[in-house]
């Protein structure tokens, strides 16, 4: 019972190093501690979906695959393509990403 309860407590707080977005997180891992069904393809900062009555995960951010800064999932801060990249690393290495992606992001 005790362990069950501990699963629901936040383990720390997450702060986006680009925009300053801050929130409590429950885990930095590939799986959500309180809900099954999703497997993340990399370690993510996992928060709790505030709009749901039930305990559901909400991905808040992860570390940039290139510069390793903590960044949030906002479109202004990062993009995800197989891994998460901060907007700065993406902009600096734009040409190395698939053309299709570059086009899509321009839209």
């Amino acid at each position: 019972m005790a362990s069950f309860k501990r699963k629901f407590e936040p383990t720390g707080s997450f702060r986006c190093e680009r925009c300053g977005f801050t929130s409590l997180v429950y885990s930095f891992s590939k799986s959500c501690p309180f809900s099954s069904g999703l497997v993340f393809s990399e370690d993510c900062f996992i928060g709790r979906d505030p709009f749901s009555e039930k305990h559901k995960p909400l991905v808040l951010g992860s570390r940039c695959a290139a510069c390793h800064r903590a960044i949030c999932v906002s479109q202004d801060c990062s993009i995800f393509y197989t891994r998460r990249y901060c907007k700065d690393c993406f902009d600096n290495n734009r040409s190395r990403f698939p053309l299709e992606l570059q086009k899509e992001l321009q839209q």
Partner: protein
Amino acid sequence: MGGAKLYTCIVMDWSKQEKDLDRIFFKNFSLIQRGSQEHKDFWKFFYRYQKFNASKEKTKAEKNVEWSASSEGESSKDPFSFPPVYDRSHRICFNVETDNLEYQLRVLQQRREDERKKSSPLTLKHLLEFRSVIRHFLNFQQKTKFQRIQKIIRDQSELPIYQFKDQILSAVRDNQVVLIAGDTGCGKSTQVPQYLLRGSYEKIACTQPRRIACLSLAKRVSYETLNEYRTEIAYQVRFERSRTPATKVLFLTEGLLLRQLSTDRDLSRYDVIIIDEVHERHINSDFLLGVLRILIDQRSDLKLILMSATINISLFSDYFQGAPVIKVPGRLYPIDLQYMPISNASVLQPTAQKSSKLDPQPYLRILQLIDNKYPRSERGDVLVFLSGMNEIASLLHEVKSYGEATGRWIGLPLHSALSIEEQDKVFDVAPDGTRKCIISTNIAETSITIDGIRFVIDSGKVKEMGYDSHTKMNRLQEFWISQASSEQRKGRAGRTGPGVCFRLYSESDYSSFPEYATPEIQRVPLESLVLQTIALDLGNIRKFPFIESPSLSSIETSVAFLKEQDALTNDERLTPVGKMLAQLPVDVVIGKMLIMGSLFHVIEPVLIIAAGLSVQSPFTQTAFNQDESSAQSTRQSLESDHGDPYTLLNAFDEWINVKRDGVKASSQWCKRRGIEEQRLYEMVKLRQQFRDVLLDHELLEREFHEASGEEEERERKSRWFQLSEVQQEELRSMRKRHRTENKQRKVLKMDHEVDEEEEVSIAAGLKHLEFKLLHDLSQLQDGSSERRSYSLRDINLLKIVICSGLYPQVAIGDDCNTFKKGSEQIFHTKSKSFLVLHPTSVFSSNPDLLFQQQEGGKKVHYLLAYEKLLETNRPYMVNALKVPALQTLLLFTQSIDTNESCSRLVVDEWLEIVFTGEDTGQEVMSIVQTLRGTWSRILEMKLAKKSKRDDEDDDQGRESDEIQSLERLLGSRLAEFLDSDYNYTLSQISSSIRPHLYKGPSSTSTTSGGEGGGTKGLPGKLTVGSSKSSPSPHPTKGGFMITHYFTYDCLVDPSQAEASSSLSQHLRNVWVCPSCHQSLVVNMAEQLSHRGECEIEQQAKRKEEKRKEEERAVINTREYHCKECDRVFQFTSIEILRHKRQHKQN
């Protein structure tokens, strides 16, 4: 590629596979649960997604590559290495985990086979494709949710107060008291508690003047903090609370915080207290400020934050020794101000009539002006401020017909007497090309904020409740508004965009307006306030450090009233009744009713009536006006001949019975009768709350079958299970729908015809089910059918109980009333003449009920007791109750003065009662003394009982035994008294006679002639019979004080020509007391005094004997014949031994 092509050729009809797919994917899948909103959303998304893909005519099927960086092998260190082929699914950072799909498919097909059905067309590919759509859906969800969070944060940071966040926190850290002044829309109410929370304060209280604001703020702040703090942000109001031990921010009403003081003197449960909207100057917030100013000296760790509009800032800052002020600008768009004073000609015309009707022309002209000047395509509604409901109704009529003619306007009323649903209409959206014209009282000034207002039309008038502490008259009067509220009204035009404000007065009028409105404390009765100050030990109320003191005379009248009501002792301490009253969250009048109701065991109807008088009247006036014929006639069956409180009781009982037939029946029943059902629900809740308070104070004993707190909770739960499963589900889903429905704005229709058979709203259904859940309907119904069989005796007893609270609010009918219509009948109280019946009163439509009825040749006199006086255009009595005059007066008055034969009584120095029968007066006075004596004895014992609780149980039992027998005595005697019909005349004492009423103290002379027979006896010398105290002379009136209310023989008797006959009254005669059978030599005063005490004493004696007898029976006694003294004793064996020993010793 070939396989893929084949696959796209066979068009899959997904809709036929929904069931199977649900079974496979959403069985235990926690992220999307079958039947949930998300589940529905998913299927919508699914079909949209399919359509989108089809329209794109994709050349290749979605490959659904679930590629992950790690699966590529950790060896690839290059952070920019990507799979060779671009795929959109790579942009999703997670995969969806499901059960083994191949296996699932096999299970599916097997089941088909078992059920002898065709095998499913679904293949593994389909399932994989389906899973990939789930993945896209979840990704979409994650994105939008994060965006929502971002929006909340962005909105917060755009609020004007955001710039002051750090300043506020450091000010609070460095100072004990901080004032934050900001105009509407700056975000102070929602943000400051959050700042404090993030600044790691943990016990934050935030008071609000209105209950509704507590609920909505708790909800809003909880949402804005992303529910991170869930139960940590809560509210608590009179009927509801969401508080838990984890609560860190609590929104509560001012009244509630004051009540918490009684159990927690220094509010140690909080470390920060925010008083919001202090500028509104409600009586509670003013009082709270005073209490807190005292408290902060005692608790240096307590932080106090005052929040106000930018009104009169220095008043608050100075009150707290120059507390720092943080001024936050509001978010207002520019407002174009236009003064359009109504010309004198049009003002004069309507005021010629007595009922000054509102002239709609200036308002309609402005609507025309708007029509001409602003294109229809530009949105923006109108908000009109008028003074009162009548004005609103008459303008609404005009606006509606103008609206119909132009097709451009929808008129909507807004005031507090409207039903909740009607009020909510002002938030609905007007259809394109039309504008709302909301016609409102000052309720829309601060309490209700409506978005989309572009034009404000301000009449400059307000109707406010004034209070005359001398006559205890509430007066609804029209005033010019203050400059502060004038600005507030203007500001309503600039909340969502630039706006225009039309003021229907001149600029010079404006500058003559008072700067601020009169604070509530200076215009309402102060009884509750006085009680609370004393209960909280705050010292002398006259020296209380109010921010702005109420008038001394207002305090004095309140103190006097409380003394009159036996709530305060002469040295201004709380009596037991006063203590009780201070704890009841109700008016003194209502509180007394409740206490008396429990004493006389008629608590059920009293609870309901008290609840009914405490909430807004459930009888809507609108129904009264509109469908006069239908609503009024259907209501008639509920009306009681006894008066309005009984009508209220009937309506409640009837409603409870209709309730059995379900929600639709009851809400229609209410609608037909013009009854606001919401108020009845409030009554149910309040009734329960009153009950709990009385139980808590042992004024009400738990009935045998009745549950205590814990058990009640259990019972409530079991009622939940008694609801069918369908109902449970219904309730859950209704609660949910109710939540979502509230957010959606409906579009208004041009025609307002309300469908009689209108679908019952979800809210009503929800209320109904919750009601069933929380209250034992069958128990309520039992009560209501019991009341149907009430005898006249029961009804009269109930009247007396109600009167115990209402007195001295009684009025006598004018002598000329017989010749007048109901609405023209006039009534007089001691301090106020020419009162009239309220138009909703049963006596207004049926004035005959009030006339002294001839019953067997005897006249029955009635008085009207009323709940309060309300002066609008005429002084009305509200909630009138018909009561028997003699009995009511003699039981409750503070003074009864008699002549020497008791044939003439003067009550409260106001009414004169003259008995026609001989000796009737003496008989009546003796009964009254007994009744009142017993009454106060019971009250004393009951109230003392609680404090004695720790004493021996045995003693307790004996005491309640005594109480019970006294109660029985009182009950039967009281009923007899109420039933009795004495012959008497009743009249008012004219003010010219009043100074000559009494003999005065000097007249100790002998009886000579007609100028007042003096008292002949020399009572000082005599100790009479068993009488404990001999009556002492009254210092000013003359005569003798038999009790504190009864002064005998002090009246100058004008008709007393033949002194000789009365002479006998002063001579001491031999008299045999009918109850103790002693013969005594007494004069009249002594006789009366003896009788009053003797009755009670005899009763006690009889009871004591009976108890001893019973005791004897219990302890084994037997008859013992002692040979030595030759007597028979009733002895226990021990007593026999003792007796024998005595003989031996002798």
